């Protein structure tokens, strides 16, 4: 209960103002496509030089939590995930916003973020010593199987046909192989120097999700068919609270999946939302409503990606191993401020670590309040007519891709990938499985190659990947997941007859 003694620091005037400012700025940055949590935290590090360690870390913590939640805003309203964490939110969130219920979607997303986020931080506060041991249990073979578990949901994610889902996943995995391979020293599919570093995930995300929509909006132009939203339905907060409270299953699955995935270093929050979305659909009584603007889809995805934030700091704080790209930047921020993470950090630097963690707890609440306040106002974006919307979204897409590394190369890559996705969508493919392949392909490859190299020096590849309780459990999940999607496909075919 040590942490209770350190709330005072968070509520001192300066610290609280920094926390409030960080949360609001984080929400806005998160809502801008292309400005990922990782970048927001990196941008803030120079500012922390001018502050004492506690305030500096409060700022970084507030930015981390609120940018993850803010990413849902553009995912819902523009169908552009602000960061990989928000991909799953586009599936039902944007469908709901298109029906004129954008306000409801935003409210559900912020409330679910609050629940997931607070539980995640509580887990960090109370279970860190236990979780730290868990982190070390995930070696190359376990991490490889985790990535494969994620890949098995490709078939059923976001598209009607399993075959098309798998094909899209393969295209994503192929894009993931582009670039200079550090482990083998090989150059793969580098047709142009700008591809030597591979395809960065942020421009790819923007291209895959934004460009097909933009082309579509330009094609439809000012035509009257397929009318746009005229009015955003009012949705009182009490109704949203009741809705979230009713969906305990989605909330529970989202929080659990997010917390577990958050602890595993490397896999991080990028896929927490997608896996939680898929699992809560599998266990839902209203399975067929997913993808049409169903509240469970939003709640599962958003509770998962915020639940990930707290546990992803466990390996960072106790072992100095960052669990996600954003945590890697946070590690730099800690070290600059003279805080060296390690098993003893809660004893050596309690006056810094506890205010940092507490500020994330308070930050979640501030983020939710502020988010709910702007929800109704932000949802009006859905009313902007197509011919005004299209150029604005295009400008945002170009800005977001450029800002990743201040490089036009990323803008061209974004446009080319987007144009390709537009063609694929015409043939019934969807972006979600493709992007999952793009994220998980390289993770699976990395751990397989590393594992294989270690295995060759020891007893060989088969015993390395196929022994150990955790490996066998993960393999069982892979088999179950594949069997389930094959069974669903057969059943669907029979129904379609």
């Amino acid at each position, binding site marked *: 209960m040590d942490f209770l003694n350190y709330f005072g620091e968070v509520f001192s005037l300066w610290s609280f103002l920094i926390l409030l400012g960080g949360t609001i700025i984080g929400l806005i940055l998160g809502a801008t496509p292309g400005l990922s949590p990782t970048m927001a935290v990196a941008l803030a*590090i120079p500012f922390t030089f001018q502050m004492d360690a506690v305030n500096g870390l409060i700022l970084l913590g507030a930015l981390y939590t609120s940018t993850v939640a803010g990413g849902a805003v553009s995912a819902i309203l523009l169908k552009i995930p602000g960061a990989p964490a928000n991909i799953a939110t586009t599936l039902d969130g944007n469908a709901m916003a298109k029906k004129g219920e954008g306000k409801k979607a935003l409210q559900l997303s912020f409330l679910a973020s609050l629940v997931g986020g607070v539980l995640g931080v509580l887990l960090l506060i109370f279970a860190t010593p236990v979780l730290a041991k868990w982190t070390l249990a995930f070696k190359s073979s376990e991490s490889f199987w985790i990535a494969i578990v994620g890949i098995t949901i490709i078939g059923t994610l976001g598209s009607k046909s399993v075959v098309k889902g798998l094909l899209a996943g393969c295209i994503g995995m192929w894009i993931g192989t582009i670039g200079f391979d*550090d482990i083998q020293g090989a150059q793969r599919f580098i047709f142009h120097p700008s591809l030597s570093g591979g395809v960065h995930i942020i421009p790819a995300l923007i291209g895959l999700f934004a460009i097909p929509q933009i082309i579509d909006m330009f094609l439809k132009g000012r035509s009257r068919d397929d009318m746009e939203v005229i009015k955003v339905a009012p949705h009182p907060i009490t109704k949203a609270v009741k809705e979230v409270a009713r969906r305990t299953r989605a909330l529970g699955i989202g929080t659990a999946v997010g917390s577990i995935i958050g602890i595993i270093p490397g896999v991080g929050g990028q896929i927490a939302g997608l896996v939680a979305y898929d699992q809560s659909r599998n266990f839902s009584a209203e399975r067929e409503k997913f993808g049409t603007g169903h509240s469970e889809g939003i709640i599962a995805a958003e509770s998962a990606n915020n639940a990930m934030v707290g546990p992803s700091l466990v390996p960072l704080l106790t*072992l100095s191993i960052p669990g996600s790209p954003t945590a890697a930047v946070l590690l730099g921020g800690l070290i600059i401020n003279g805080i*060296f993470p390690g098993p003893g950090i809660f004893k050596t630097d309690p006056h810094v670590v506890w205010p940092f963690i507490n500020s994330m707890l308070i930050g979640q609440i501030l983020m939710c309040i502020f988010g709910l306040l702007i929800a109704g106002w932000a949802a009006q974006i859905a009313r902007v007519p197509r011919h005004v919307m299209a150029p604005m979204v295009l400008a945002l897409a170009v800005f977001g891709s450029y800002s990743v590394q201040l490089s036009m190369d990323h803008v061209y890559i974004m446009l080319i990938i987007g144009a390709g996705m537009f063609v694929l969508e015409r043939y019934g493919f969807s972006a979600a499985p493709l992007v999952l392949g793009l994220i998980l392909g390289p993770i699976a490859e990395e751990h397989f190659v590393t594992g294989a190299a270690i295995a060759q020096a020891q007893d060989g590849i088969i015993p390395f990947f196929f022994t150990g309780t955790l490996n066998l459990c993960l393999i069982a999940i892979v088999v179950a997941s594949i069997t389930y999607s094959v069974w669903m496909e057969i059943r669907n075919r029979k129904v379609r007859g």
Partner: protein
Amino acid sequence: MKKLLASAALALMALTGTAQADGHGNYPDRPMMLMVSYGAGGATDFQARIVTMTAGNEDALGMPIAIINKPGAGGRVGWNWFATQAEADGYTMGAYNIPHFIAQSIKGGVEYSADSFEPIANWGADPAVFVVAADSDMNSMADVVEFAKANPGKLTFSGAGLFVGHHIAALQIEKAAGVKMAYIPNKKGGAGAMKAVISGEVMAGVNNLSDAFRAQEAGTVKILGVADLERNAFLPDVPTMMEQGLDVDNSSVNFRGVMVPKGTPKAIIDKLAATVPTMFENSRVQGKMKAGGSPMHIMTRDEVLAMWAAREETLKELLAGL
């Protein structure tokens, strides 16, 4: 008429020429950037942010320096960009990592070599160290060599990638001891390689002195040897490789510093070479670097030029067999 035009053009060129020379006198008159070819939060990135934080002071450059990250392919993306696209006007600087970029240019497939860049000054030197998990049976480099001799190719040890300082140290250790071990490069860099040691996935590892020092303080690893010519102030009790009978010099030490593209005006290079080392000596910079556990090693342009040339020679020899 033609003659008139030509002389007018000449006059104009002369004018702009002098204007430029004057411009160098005012240099720098606008903010500058420093390209870092590794991601935000990595050691090179945060050290670059610390050593440039006083650039705006009147006794330094008088203009702030912004850090721009261009990570990818082990630094190749950023250095390719710096060699081919960065403007040689003195406002675009880059951070170098030795031996990384020289080793990469020797292996090929990149658009730069040591001749593409002009060094300005060096700020840090992070030697590679040999680590094992805290509960390992091995307590000295002699134990490591003994095990590797008894089990050829079976001793797995991690490092941050191929053709980086860790890999160079690994090659030198194998060569000096006359043993074959299994070097396992890690895609997540030093942090990932360290995790592999702590979790027991590999038996040993080569890692940065600064990160290993923190891990040893935290009680997760033991440091068996330093790949440098002298013992390090952070680790006075850890012997060098040479002291333990392994002929490993300082070729793998990760030197970090500032450079500009080839073709940058001489006057600007001279001005930077005179100012930047004093900027690194600022007491606030020194304090932050010390707090962050990052060893500083300030070198002037001439010293860096000599160091680059020496590295190029040893690395060519070492990598020839690969």
